[in-house]
């Protein structure tokens, strides 16, 4: 890592993080000592074979879980010794989650779905909440779908709502687990365009994926194997998702 990177703000720092699961008499070592720093404004993909520990790592980063040993600093705050409630608050203020299957509330409008994280933050008035949600939906290109219910939207639109929901609390880091896993190629690229736009606006993004192609659109790639970092590379030539999308064959009219 060069000196230029070191001057940037560290958003995430893992120091020899281990996560063991006790299954019966056996110990499953999902993470066997992972250390890295992620700086503000990075777009990092995390790849690795199935069972290499990607989701386990993301759960650590998202403060949904705590390490068996080692320490995790989120925005400078050590997480390992935090109580459940403290972690809930930390997630609420500093983390934005995007899930593979969107996880929107049923029979609920886009804007209400996006408001959800702010409902658990008493600092927001209902007016501020609504404004922030509308802003986030505009940022993902759904400014005209505010009152659409979750069951009235396409997969791509639902994932946009989910991304807006992840952005609404202005998180320190955006965490995505297979965020394009359920979408077709075209919609996946549209989603990548959106992530790249957010990246350019300065958001820190961590994107777990099986798809090696996606790494070409990120600024950095971390490869896991057997619960350890196998490879951690900076991408010198970030491809433009917008160009790739334009190059895709036009969808057939039906």
């Amino acid at each position, binding site marked *: 890592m060069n000196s230029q990177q070191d001057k940037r703000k560290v958003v995430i720092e893992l120091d020899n993080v281990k996560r063991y699961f006790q299954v019966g008499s056996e110990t499953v070592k999902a993470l066997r000592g992972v250390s890295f720093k992620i700086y503000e404004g990075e777009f990092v993909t995390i790849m690795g074979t199935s069972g290499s520990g990607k989701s386990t790592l993301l*759960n650590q980063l998202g403060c949904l879980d705590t390490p068996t040993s080692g320490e995790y600093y989120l925005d400078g705050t050590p997480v390992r010794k935090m109580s*459940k*409630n403290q972690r809930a608050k930390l*997630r609420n203020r500093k983390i934005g989650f995007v899930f593979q299957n969107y*996880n929107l*509330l049923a029979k609920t409008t886009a804007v209400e779905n996006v408001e959800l994280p702010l409902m*658990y933050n008493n600092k927001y008035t209902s007016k501020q909440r609504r404004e922030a949600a509308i802003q986030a939906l505009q940022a993902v290109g759904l400014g005209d779908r505010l009152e659409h219910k979750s069951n009235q939207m396409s997969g791509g639109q639902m994932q946009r709502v989910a991304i807006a929901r992840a952005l609404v609390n202005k998180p320190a880091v955006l965490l995505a687990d297979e965020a394009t896993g359920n979408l077709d190629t075209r919609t996946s690229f549209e989603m990548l365009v959106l992530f790249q736009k957010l990246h350019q606006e300065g958001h820190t993004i961590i994107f777990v994926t099986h798809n090696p192609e996606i790494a070409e659109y990120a600024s950095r790639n971390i490869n896991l194997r057997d619960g350890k970092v196998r490879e951690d590379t900076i991408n010198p030539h970030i491809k433009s998702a917008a160009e790739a999308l334009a190059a895709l064959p036009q969808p057939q009219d039906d």
Partner: protein
Amino acid sequence: MNILNLFKVSIRAVANNKMRSFLSMLGIIIGVAAIIIMMSIGQGSKESIRQELSTMGTNLLTIRPGADMRGGVRQDPSAMQTLKIGDYQCIVNEKKFVSYVSPEVTASGQVIYGNSNTTSTIYGESPEYLDIKQWKVEEGQNFNEEDIRKASKVCVVGKTIVNELFGEGKEAEAIGKNIRFKSIPLRIVGVLEGKGYNSWGMDQDNVIIAPYTCVMKRIAAQTYFSSIVCSALTEELSDAAIEELTQILRNNHKLKENAVDDFTIRSQAEMMDTMSSTMDTVTIILVVAAAFSLLVAGIGIMNIMLVSVTERTKEIGLRMAVGATGMVISLQFLIESVLISLTGGLIGVLLGCLISQLFPLIGMPSSIPAWSIYVSFAVCTLIGIIFGYIPARKAANMDPIEAIRHE
């Protein structure tokens, strides 16, 4: 999340599942409606009995033979023959706090006039009986002391007797006619004004009142009274009157200092209390039965809430992931179950009130005690909290990672 938002979330969850919410409310609705109905009937009967007894004169005193039976001890039949003509005469001569006195002898049987007949009760009384009962003669007149002395075969009758034997509205024609009670001819001298049914459904107008001497001698063939009724000068003087009557009777019966009374004097106030407490007991038994149905309804709510929590595991996981604490999640479900039981309670109260209003139409008195409504709401809230607690805790204890992956 503030409480208002939690309520909104819970209201939506209930509204999103209308059928299920309604079904889980049903038990509460029925239970609460049943309780309101029971209480209103209990209260209504109490009020109407009270009213009835007070129109019979709140200063009414009844002397019965035999010691106080409220202990439930069985008594020798001879103990029931302690009230004699001498007692009556002593009371009449010595009374100071008592205004009217009438001995009472009763008999039931068939009354005949021409080819008509009916079953009735004959009351042997003194002329003062009508004053004690505040009962007026509508047609004709009351019998008098002369009739008592001669044990005259005369009587005054209630409206029902006239209707049955002479026909509707034939009061004037009935006067002077001879009816037969157990083959004894009695000449009707008066017809009483109508009183209608009392709250036990007894027809108060199906009576024949005759001189007690006549009934004792010619009909019942007995030398003792079944009771003596008196009225105190005023209601306030009831206690003084009881004291006075007790002394007169004890002297007359030559009871020793330490002997118990061989008669019992009850005031109307005491009768009311006894009636009230009997009604209360019945009401309590019915309400307890209804309360058990509420318990079952609560378990029903718990059941539905547990299903609901399991079904919404993913939602719970999501809410936790975006920052909901276990406390807030459990509150959400607790409010939901309280909402269900309270809405059920509200519907139940309305239904109960509605049905209670219908009872008077079929002649059943009902009056809803206001506190029963407050208690219903309080109980429903409590049920919601108690039976919502386990599902809420289940939701709060979920692991967000597992919950969000749940399919």
